[in-house]
């Protein structure tokens, strides 16, 4: 009899219900956890997403079960509402704004052009994705991986192509972690040693007034021009205003600590939990991973090529290596510029100069996302 009861429990357990697809997903989750912990791939998001993938693929747990009538939904279903309604990505941008110093960008505003050029990959990937049969909404979401900005990619995808959310989020954060591998070969291929050796002039000092007005002016201008980008740019700039105003230290502190951390946990786990086997184990996912790499590469190339042009136009004052930092991926991409610059010329310190294009890239990808949402939303 006891054996019978055990058989019943077994029959009702996940062991009996598990499919090979779910086993594959669990293996993928473990690989992502490995990459996050051992290789330190964007661990804040990837570790959390990976655990969400794990939880979503243990059968019968029902963590993402929708609430229907009086029947209770699953834990992650409720937490996922913040993703679905676009709240979490905006709140993460609030925290990022509070962490970001736009000083280097204000000191050398031409960085903005690099931040624009480094959105190039978005549209290359968009075009190819269209070509191979994705809908325009899907293609736009895939393209945005090339913006190298996690919250923007998640925000855009939840609006345009929610089915692709896990694949796009995982691809975006993975490639951001791989920036130190993706960019250097392209940087060396496209620039000459002479260009890479260029030492740049010290940035001028930026007054507190300029730093305070910057977020206000950017909000007014960008939201007027592209209303759909308001939640992202608005919150990013509110966070930055908290930071630069100097009078709301405690709000700035909470935005970049307790609040962003809580939201990161909820966002990561629930985005991961959308990756159930049927949704993730499709040829589309492989296509997305491939297109994501293409997008990152062409964004890098876009930034570098404009960097070269600015090198020419400035009479050799701009080191084109800072162009690749325009992809966002703050501050990883700027560090790559620093490292490559120092390889070419040990006395070369590009970090601060690359921070300008780097933060311009955040604005650039938000703008690109706004355009695509306006066109296809």
């Amino acid at each position, binding site marked *: 009899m006891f054996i019978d009861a055990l058989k019943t429990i077994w029959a009702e357990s996940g062991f009996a219900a598990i499919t090979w697809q779910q086993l594959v997903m669990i293996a993928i989750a473990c690989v992502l956890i490995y990459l996050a912990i051992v290789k330190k791939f964007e661990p804040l998001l990837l570790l959390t997403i990976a655990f969400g993938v794990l939880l979503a693929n243990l059968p019968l747990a029902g963590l993402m079960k929708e609430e229907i009538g009086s029947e209770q939904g699953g834990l992650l279903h409720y937490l996922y509402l913040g993703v679905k309604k676009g709240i979490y990505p905006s709140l993460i941008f609030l925290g990022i704004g509070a962490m970001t110093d736009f000083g280097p960008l204000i000191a050398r505003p031409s960085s903005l052009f690099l931040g624009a050029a480094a959105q190039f990959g978005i*549209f290359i990937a968009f075009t190819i994705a269209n070509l191979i049969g994705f809908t325009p909404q899907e293609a736009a979401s895939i393209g945005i991986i090339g913006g190298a900005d996690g919250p923007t990619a998640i925000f855009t995808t939840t609006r345009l192509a929610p089915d692709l959310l896990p694949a796009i989020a995982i691809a975006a954060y993975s490639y951001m972690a791989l920036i130190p591998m993706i960019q250097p070969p392209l940087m060396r291929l496209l620039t000459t040693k002479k260009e890479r050796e260029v030492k740049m002039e010290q940035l001028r000092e930026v007054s507190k007034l300029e730093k305070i007005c910057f977020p206000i002016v950017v909000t007014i*201008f960008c939201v007027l021009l592209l209303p759909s980008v308001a939640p992202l740019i608005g919150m990013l700039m509110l966070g930055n205003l908290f930071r630069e105003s100097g009078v709301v230290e405690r709000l700035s502190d909470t935005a970049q600590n307790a609040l962003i951390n809580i939201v990161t946990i909820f966002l990561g786990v629930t985005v991961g939990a959308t990756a159930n086997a049927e949704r993730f184990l499709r040829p589309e996912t492989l296509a997305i991973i491939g297109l994501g790499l293409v997008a990152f590469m062409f964004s890098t190339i876009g930034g570098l090529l404009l960097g070269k042009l600015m090198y020419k136009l400035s009479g050799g004052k701009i080191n084109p290596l800072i162009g690749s930092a325009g992809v966002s991926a703050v501050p990883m991409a700027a560090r790559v510029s620093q490292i490559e610059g120092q390889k070419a010329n040990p006395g070369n310190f590009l970090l601060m100069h690359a921070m300008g294009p780097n933060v311009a890239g955040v604005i650039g990808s938000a703008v690109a996302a706004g355009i695509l949402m306006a066109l296809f939303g």
Partner: protein
Amino acid sequence: MSFFDSILVSIFSMALVFLVLASLYALIQIFAKLVGIFKHEAALPVNVPAEQAEVLDEGAKGPEVSAGELRLKGVDEKTAAMIMAIISHESGIPLSELQFKSIKAIEQS
């Protein structure tokens, strides 16, 4: 969407991205000029004394910018620890959030 259309959309969008960021470029430039003109009048009142503000500024570069090493010039480590503890106390910022680049003794003639 046809290939031609998506190329068109791409060119248009890319141009628009440039246009928006170029406008921001213009705005920043204009603003910097304005600030340059009104510099003396518009200066914001800052209550924090200068040295402390510097410390705050260094600590504010965000968690991403690595601290590098603390260089001590003409001060022994004990004094450095004391300075760090005092600044932490006076400014209300935990030691873990302050980043010191170097501590230098000033020669008194």
